[in-house]
């Protein structure tokens, strides 16, 4: 969203406008973060439908409590923390429903067109391996390597200690190596 000077509005400026009753300004925040955070939700939950629902829920909850965002300049980080919690809740609900982890059909369709068949197979292997991890390990792996967060940031977002997070990431990597090697050996 462009401000009066043509510069893109900061998160803090957009948050201030929303808090002053300019509700449509919130759409700019949605546009700014939807794709970035959709990636995490899709990989965490394993399908696009659940991911979009979790992301919608996160945006709605963030709006509802926007006045409680202590550092509006870091709205994105605050929103991400909410999303991580929503993904945990959604994942737990899916487990209770007995659903299995399924790959993201849309992501597969969007895979590289250079070698579509091989690319699709590789993508399926990755999604299947990711789905074999425990939710805790998958969360830690995605935050560390895909979202490229530092351990301190991860601890702040998840509420889990740095040592435990390092252990989860290490075990996730070990498990993924085994799973992907099995695929190549088969």
């Amino acid at each position: 969203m462009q401000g009066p000077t043509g510069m893109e509005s900061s998160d803090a400026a957009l948050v201030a406008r929303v808090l002053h009753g300019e509700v449509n300004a919130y759409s700019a925040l949605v546009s700014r973060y939807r794709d970035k955070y959709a990636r995490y939700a899709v990989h965490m939950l394993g399908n696009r439908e659940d991911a979009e629902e979790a992301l919608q829920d996160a945006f709605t909850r963030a709006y509802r409590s926007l006045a409680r965002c202590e550092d509006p300049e870091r709205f994105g980080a605050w929103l991400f923390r909410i999303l991580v919690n929503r993904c945990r809740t959604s994942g737990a609900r899916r487990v209770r429903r007995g659903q299995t982890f399924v790959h993201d059909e849309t992501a597969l369709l969007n895979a590289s067109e250079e070698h579509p068949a091989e690319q699709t197979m590789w993508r399926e292997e990755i999604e299947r391996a990711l789905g074999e991890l425990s939710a805790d390990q998958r969360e830690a792996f995605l935050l560390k390597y895909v979202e490229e967060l530092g351990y301190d940031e991860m601890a702040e977002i998840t509420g889990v200690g740095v040592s435990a997070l390092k252990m989860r990431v290490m075990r996730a990597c070990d498990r993924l190596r085994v799973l992907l090697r099995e695929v190549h050996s088969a």
Partner: protein
Amino acid sequence: MPDWGRNTLELMVQELQHPVRLDDSFNRRVMVRVRRIYAERRHRSIIGWLGAAASISRRPAWAAALAAGVVAVVSVSLLHGPNKPSLPAGQTIPVQFVLVAPEARTVAVVGDFNNWGLGDTALVAVNHNGVWSVSAPVHTGVHRYAFLVNGKQWVADPTAPRAADDDFGQPSSALVVEASTQ
């Protein structure tokens, strides 16, 4: 770590870092929800099941919490009754917030009715031998609030229902303010 394993993980991460695109219909769905919340707040016309919950009749919980050392009592005047009145838009009712916290240096009340204390809007309580109190007019409707102790410790009211949205790292309580029938 074997090279094969490291390379495979690197390739995997590269693949997972490809963006996931959502279209503008996602914005529209979010904004429908957001505008609904906005409209609900503006009109303050919702009275839910919390109607009888935040009443002064919760004295036993007050006593139990007192024993724990940190006690809060919200005294909402003319709050409850078997026949709920209609809520004229914009009507305010005086509400007294009381927190017993002998060790506290400062106590304030923050809630959605004062924009959670943004812009120095927090209600600063006065200390009476460890009993902190402040009164303020609050619009009729459903509210969320908390006590802010020493400027940083967020304390929910132990005698009130906890608000549903507690996954933001800070607890808060629910309050219903109804118009008087008297």
